[in-house]
Every structure is written in structure tokens, then in C-alpha cells.
């Protein structure tokens, strides 16, 4: 009997361990992926708490952040600041009224003064502002300068040059690209979007995204054939099966250790490049624009994240004032300098980049130059609708394993895309 009673007591005690929180201050919660970058972010973001003691931000580290956020928000919970992996994910949440339209806040708090106009447009759903884009990114081609110098190679400008160089690199016993998708399956899509922009050209991608030409267009097929050829030649990660098992750290070590020569990846990898090449004696890195068919330097634009306000947040005003502070050029500049975070598409201060490694500063300089001069392209996770996006990164594996042809793949994409386009489930595409 004693044992049973004890168990009862323990049960009741534990059930009573509910969360207890002081309600005097308004707490704005925000979830961030748990990794080393997060700690750096948190250090910067917690300085917000010194400004106004009545509004405090709470940074909660999360693994599998997006899935957790999505489930939580769907159930009417989740953090006050809802972050998604890109504008295409915002659409559904806005449709379901899980997040708030923020136009009033944008006017009140002067967001239009520091955000780029086109960037605010990315957050529009049915004409209302539902999200703020964050973490501007683009794909570039990193390379191991030491390996290149030792072999007397020079970085290629065109896709043909890249193909020729890749053959040489492979023949010399190096892995051509340090790639692999074991840590993040959707990385397949980086290359699909990138090759469409670089080979079919951004204008054709624009036409396809607006429904003027089908995805089965010859230019798209050509882009996918080139990618497929490179993949099957084993240039990505040393073979298709290795590509499927190489994990993030392995990929980094391959490039920094001089086992691989190049890596086509987003500007988000810069931080890792600094770190891994820092650990690796005698190797160094640099980058060039991803080679295009005609040699033009195209830069795809992507948004790594978006921020919105949760419809179930009890204090949206406080959340909005945190967002105002967070997206301010000063905070963004500090996150860039301290944590190498991709800046939000806001007007950064003139001197925001001066303390940065010139290799990093030039990425953003080139990107803004490209977008001013009609040389910008599209990343799949920012400009494609959600179902097409999933199709792009999942089904392309079937092309690479030889199960279906490039044409089959593009036909499937065209079908899904047409459906989403007809339903209007498509992120806003800025007019060219």
C-alpha cells in the first residue's frame, strides 16, 4: 500500500509541475535552429532586452525547426515570431489565417523606409503583407585555391569551360564538387534552380514561372541534361551514391582538405568556409560566379527565411516592435559582421561591410549589382510554389538514378506547377 500511495503522490506532484511565468513583462518568443550560429545570433538579439524592460525577447533553440514550427502553429500555438524557410511556405499559413497581415505595422513602424520595395512584395499574399524576407542569399562557386594553383587551373567562366575543367579535375584524382545531400535532402534543388538560371537563362525561368512557357521547354531540358550528365559522371561528391550519403561536415572537410576542388553552394556556406579552411593548414578558398552558358555573371536570389507574426500571439504589437528592431539596418549589419548572417533585404549602412573579409563583402556587392542590372535569377525555395518545390528536389533523384528521363521529370513538374499556378498558390514574382 505504501508504494501505491507514494506513486499517487509522485503522479500528482509531477502533474502539478505546470509552467509558471511572471506576466509583468511582455515576452516575444522566437525559435531558431539549434547550431553554433544560433548562439552568436542570440548574443546579438538579447541586446534588444536592454532597450525596453517591458518587452523581452526569448530565443528558443529548436532542432528540426520548421517541422516543429509548422505543427505548433497549425495547432494554434508556436512562437510569436513565426519563421518559415522561404516565401513559398508563407502562402498556406496566410490562407489559413495562422499569421497576421502586417500592413498597418509596416506603415506605423516605417518598414517601407528601410526595406527594399521588391523584398516587401515577396511577402504579399492576396495584396496584404504577411511576411518579411530575411537572409538574402545567392549561389556561388567556391573553390580550393591551393588545389587550383598546384594544378595550374583557372576558375571557369562558362558551362563548357566548367565541363572541360571537371574532366581534368576528375582525371587528376580529385572529387570535382564536394557535394552530398545526406544532411539536407532538399539540397538537390539548389542545382536544379541554379542550372535553369545559368543555362536556360533567367528570362526563360521568369517566363516559365509566369506561365508563358512550359517547364518542358527546350532550354529547361538542356539545363537539366547538363546537370544530369555531371551527376552521372560522378562529379558531384564522387558518385551518385556518395552524393546521397555525404553529410554536411564530410563535404566541408573534402573541400577544405583538398580532396575536392569545387563546391556550388549558397552564400550561407561562407561561415563554414572560414571555419573549415581556418582549421585546414595550407589550404585557402575563394569564389567565382557559377558559370553560365553564355558567360554572363548571373546571380540567383534566394531568401533563407521569412518572419511573420503568429495569429495566436497575445501581443502582436510587441512582436511587431521586435521585428522593427530586428530588421533595422543597424541590427542586420551587426548580425552580418558578428555572425556572418545573410542580411535581410534592407538598406544597410554604407560601412556595414567594411569590417568583413573582402571575399564575403564582394558576394553581396556583386549580388546587388546583378539585381540592379537585370542579371538576377531565381532560387526554387523562394520563387516556386510549395508542391512544385518538393517535387523538384524529390523527383530529381529519380532522374539521377536513371529511373526516369529528364523529359519525364519536367513533364511531371509542369503538371504540378500548372495546377498551383491555376489555383493561384504561387509566390509573387517581381516583374522583370
Amino acid at each position, binding site marked *: 500500500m505504501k508504494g501505491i500511495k507514494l506513486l499517487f503522490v509522485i503522479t500528482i506532484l509531477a502533474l502539478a509541475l505546470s509552467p509558471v511565468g511572471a506576466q509583468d513583462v511582455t515576452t516575444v518568443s522566437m525559435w531558431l535552429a539549434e547550431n553554433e550560429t544560433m548562439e552568436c545570433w542570440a548574443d546579438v538579439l538579447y541586446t534588444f532586452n536592454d532597450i525596453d524592460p517591458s518587452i523581452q525577447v526569448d530565443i528558443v533553440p529548436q532542432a528540426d525547426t520548421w517541422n516543429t514550427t509548422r505543427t505548433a502553429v497549425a495547432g494554434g500555438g508556436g512562437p510569436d515570431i513565426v519563421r518559415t524557410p522561404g516565401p513559398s511556405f508563407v502562402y*498556406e499559413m496566410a490562407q*489559413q489565417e*495562422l499569421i497576421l497581415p502586417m500592413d498597418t505595422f509596416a506603415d506605423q513602424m516605417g518598414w517601407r523606409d528601410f526595406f527594399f520595395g521588391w523584398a516587401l512584395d515577396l511577402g504579399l499574399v492576396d495584396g496584404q503583407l504577411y511576411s518579411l524576407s530575411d537572409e538574402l542569399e545567392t549561389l556561388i562557386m567556391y573553390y580550393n585555391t591551393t588545389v587550383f594553383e598546384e594544378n595550374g587551373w583557372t576558375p571557369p567562366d562558362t558551362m563548357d569551360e566548367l565541363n572541360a575543367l571537371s574532366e581534368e579535375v576528375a582525371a587528376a584524382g580529385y572529387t570535382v564538387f564536394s557535394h552530398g545531400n545526406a544532411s539536407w535532402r532538399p539540397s538537390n534543388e539548389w542545382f536544379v534552380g541554379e542550372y535553369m538560371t545559368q543555362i536556360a537563362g533567367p528570362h526563360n525561368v521568369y517566363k516559365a514561372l509566369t506561365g508563358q512557357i512550359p517547364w518542358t521547354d527546350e532550354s529547361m531540358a538542356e539545363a537539366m541534361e547538363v546537370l544530369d550528365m555531371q551527376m552521372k559522371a560522378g562529379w558531384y561528391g564522387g558518385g551518385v*551514391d556518395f*552524393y*546521397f550519403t555525404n553529410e554536411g561536415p564530410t563535404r566541408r572537410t573534402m573541400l577544405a582538405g583538398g580532396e575536392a576542388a569545387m563546391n556550388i553552394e549558397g552564400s550561407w556556406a561562407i561561415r563554414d568556409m572560414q571555419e573549415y579552411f581556418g582549421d585546414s593548414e595550407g589550404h585557402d578558398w575563394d569564389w567565382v560566379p557559377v558559370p553560365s552558358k553564355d558567360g554572363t555573371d548571373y546571380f540567383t536570389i534566394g531568401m533563407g527565411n521569412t518572419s511573420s507574426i503568429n495569429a495566436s500571439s497575445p501581443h502582436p504589437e510587441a512582436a511587431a516592435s521586435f521585428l522593427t528592431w530586428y530588421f533595422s539596418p543597424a541590427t542586420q549589419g551587426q548580425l552580418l559582421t558578428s555572425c556572418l548572417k545573410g542580411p535581410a533585404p534592407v538598406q544597410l549602412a554604407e560601412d556595414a561591410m567594411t569590417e568583413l573579409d573582402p571575399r564575403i563583402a564582394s558576394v553581396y556587392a556583386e549580388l546587388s549589382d546583378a539585381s540592379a542590372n537585370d542579371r538576377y535569377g531565381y532560387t526554387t525555395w523562394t520563387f516556386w510554389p*510549395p508542391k512544385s518545390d518538393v517535387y523538384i528536389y*524529390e523527383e530529381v533523384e529519380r532522374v539521377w*538514378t536513371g*529511373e526516369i528521363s529528364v523529359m519525364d521529370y519536367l513533364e511531371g513538374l509542369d503538371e504540378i506547377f500548372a495546377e498551383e499556378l491555376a489555383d493561384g498558390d504561387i509566390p509573387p514574382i517581381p516583374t522583370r
Partner: protein
Amino acid sequence: MAVLSQKKPTTIFEKFGDETWRYRFIRNVLVPWLFILPLLSIHVFVVAIPAVQGIYMSLTDWSGVGKNAEFIGLENYRELFFEDEVFGKAMVNTFQWMAFFLTVPFILALFCATVLAQIKRGGMVYRSILFIPYVLASVVTTAIWRNLLSPKQGIGAELAKIGIEGFDIAYLGRPETALMSIAFIDNWHFWGFLMILFLAAMQAIPPVLYDAAKIDGANRWDEFRHVTFPGIRPIVLFMFMMVAIWSFLAFDYIWLLTQGGPSGSSEMIATQLYKNAFLRFEGGYGAAQGVVISIFAGFIILIFVTLRRRGWDI
């Protein structure tokens, strides 16, 4: 007033005018149900109600977020069986998985249990060690094996170093090997459990039966066929049912190791369901897959129950 209130508490039973009936009702119906109620109500609120909601959602175009859902009848099911190629593939994979788990661990466990049942000294030690993998968490097991199967620093790579080539392949990265590699890893963790069950059943067989067989001049295979196997048949068949059901639910190991890749070669119904419900804003469609899994599982149970009704000793 006083008269009324005195009468009131017994009204229900008064109709019958039978105190014994009332006492029996309390003792045989009310009290037992009061005992059952706490756990049952927790279960109903956590499982039954949401599951019914899930069934309803499978008949809608519910996205998985929010409250807007339009009733679309059996459209999800039609799409699932007649249009969805990935689902077809996931079904094939699920049945391959089931075929693997209905054979490999059973044969291994039966063989090992038979061998172990004959050992007197050290039997406990073997038994304990062989059981260890079963108590490990899936997060840990997959972390260990992902590394051991790595083509760069796993077992294959070490074999290649000492001159045995050909094993340093990316087991989890090849469409031909991915599913079976995951099954291998899951089985490493699982088969010991099965072995323990069979061993326990074997040890419960009265030794006198073996003596009788011996007197009849039975050899070891005869003994296994006529004494051991009939003795453990109920548990073997029962585990057949359970493993078949579990095959439809398999998720952890696949998700932690390949998430269904490469190119859908290890996609299972459960992983596809997860992707539909959580990554593709297709909550209703995912719910339909959940219902399909439940129907399959129910079907297997039905077979089992029917066989039992027909007098099979299972």
C-alpha cells in the same frame, strides 16, 4: 419535503423493487467501470477522438494547418490508389520490408533460440548480451550504424585498407541497397527480442515430451518438428501478426537514416504519410494514408482472429 427527500436516492432501483439487483448492478457494473474509467478516458481523449477527427479529415482537402477544410468524399483515396505513383512504390517497399522482417529475424531467432536452449552453462550470459541491442534508442542505433556503414570510414573502408575490396560502398546511398540496409540495421536491434520470446517458449516445453520423442527414435530435426515447433507455434504465429502490423508503421529507422531516399527507394507508407501531412500541406491526404494503414493492420488482425476462431491454436 422530508418524506420526498428520503425516498429520492433509490428511485432507479425502486422500480424493480429488488435490493439484490441494485447491489449486483453496483458490484458487477458500476464499480468495475469506475475502475476502468480513468485510463479509458485518457485514452479516448488522446487517441480515439483525434483518430475519429483524422478519419473525417481524410475525406476533406484539409491542408494540415488551420481550420478550413472542404468535404471532398473519397477523392483522396481515389488519388492514392489510382494516381499516386509514389504511394505504389511505398506499398511495394512496405511489402519488401515486411517480407524481410517475416523471414530474416524469425529464422535467425529460431535458429539461435534452438542453439541456446541446449546450452546449460553460460546460457544466461549469452541471452543477456544478445538482448542488449534491443534496449537501445533508435537515435543511438542509427547514429552507430550510419558510421559503420559509411564508405569512407566504416567497416567497408577498413576492409579495403587491409586489401579486401568491394565492401566500401555507400550502402545507404544506392537505390538497390538502401532499403535492405535500413532493414538490416533495424533487425540488428530487433531480432534479439524475438529470440528471447522463442527461447522462453522453448523452455516452457515439458522435457518429458523430448524424452518421449527420444524413445520413439526421433533425430534432432524430428524433435524440432514434432516437439519444439508445436510448442512455440502460438508465439511464432502471434509475432508474425505483430511484425506484419509493425511493418506498416515502420518510420523511425527510415526517417533517421534516409528519409525515404535515395529517389524514393526506401519510401514507406508511414514516411510518405509524414511528408504529406507535415511537409506538403496535404493533411487530409496524409490522414487518408493513415486510414489505409489502419485498414491493412485491421485486415491482418482479422485473419488472425478468424484463424483462432476456427480452432487454430494461436
